């Protein structure tokens, strides 16, 4: 049983925890953290591909949330509120690092980086299965601009109009970057599958 479930089962529901956290109750804060830490940390890790940075961003996201928890009125789901805050923290951090958030249209791709287009060549497919670890590694290896849009859309489930507003790009840019990211992932997954197949063991 996870810590969160234990806490929840023995003591508080999330709604109770939110109310108690507003009063400054440490246990309530810890429950809320336990319930959402994996999702927030995974988001930060996918976006940055760096564990130390992801931990710092997770910490910052929760701190911002807890400082503002008294203003939470329950109009939206708590998890939606938290995850949006986490996304904003990560995007802010990435902007500080001067990574190219926008303009995405002008994202320069070398011939090596761009997904290969071999329209006449045979094109083996992924055969309906993807190893999760290989997918994770392939996502981590994406260029930051592609990775950001892919994580927000395909992993976190945001719509293109939401991503465009959060990242500060056009909806068309978001769609285009997502498509390129998926194409690049496909290439990289096929490559790693081929390498695995050629290993003697």
């Amino acid at each position: 049983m996870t810590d969160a479930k234990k806490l929840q089962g023995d003591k508080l529901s999330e709604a109770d925890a939110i109310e108690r956290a507003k009063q400054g109750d440490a246990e309530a804060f810890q429950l809320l953290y336990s319930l959402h830490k994996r999702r927030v940390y995974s988001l930060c890790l996918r976006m940055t591909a760096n564990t130390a940075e992801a931990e710092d961003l997770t910490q910052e996201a929760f701190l911002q949330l807890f400082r503002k928890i008294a203003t939470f009125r329950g109009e939206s789901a708590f998890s939606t509120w938290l995850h949006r805050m986490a996304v904003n923290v990560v995007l802010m951090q990435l902007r500080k690092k001067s990574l190219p958030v926008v303009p995405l249209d002008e994202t320069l791709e070398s011939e090596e980086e761009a997904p290969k287009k071999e329209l006449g060549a045979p094109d083996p497919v992924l055969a309906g299965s993807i190893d999760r670890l290989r997918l994770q590694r392939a996502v981590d290896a994406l260029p930051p601009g592609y990775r950001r849009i892919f994580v927000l859309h395909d992993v976190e489930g945001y719509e293109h109009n939401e991503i465009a507003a959060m990242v500060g790009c056009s909806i068309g840019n978001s769609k285009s970057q997502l498509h390129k990211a998926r194409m690049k992932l496909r290439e990289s997954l096929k490559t790693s599958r081929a390498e695995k197949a050629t290993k003697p063991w």
Partner: protein
Amino acid sequence: MNCTEFQEILPEVFEAGRTAEQAAHLKSCPRCSGLLADLDLIAREARQLQELAEPSPRVWNSIEIELRREGVIHELPGGPVMAPRARGWNLGAWLAPVAALALVAFAIGVYQRGWLSPQSAPQLTATAPAQISNPQPAKSQPANNEDQQLLAAVASRSPAMRAQYASNLQNVNAYIRDAEESAQADPNDEEAQQIVMDAYEQRAAVYEMALDRSLP
């Protein structure tokens, strides 16, 4: 419609669905249908990455310390006590556990001079690793005895706090065991050695806080 035309509008096919012409092309072209199936598979599998990883326990410790410092968390009777987080490991960071142990020693001195109830003045110290590069002794050494003495001292002053400290000691001892196992698995892993020291630092901090709160 040929493959080039189809692949140019592929992002829209995903978003808006396919027209009759596009559907006809997909039906007749295994290459494009294979590509579409792959991209769809990637999009579906990506959701599995949503909660794959877990942050280290130190993240919560840092959050709690900061919230307490800012007054967002109020000190409540019987509230949880968390060990402070030791972020990273730099040249001077080794001083922290030493300082914590020195404080513990000081507190013990105060304790033994009778500032606390004299009938419960056990020798209390947070066991630290004798040698970072060889953490086995601490692993094989049961910490229960000194922990029990500490808990007895806490209970004598503040019975309501005993359960919290028992839980904290249990957590920090588990952290030490995990850290030592990692360090033993690869004795050349400097990061693992540092984590062992971090773990002992947290244990020393629990002792420090326990004794601090036990003092009049």
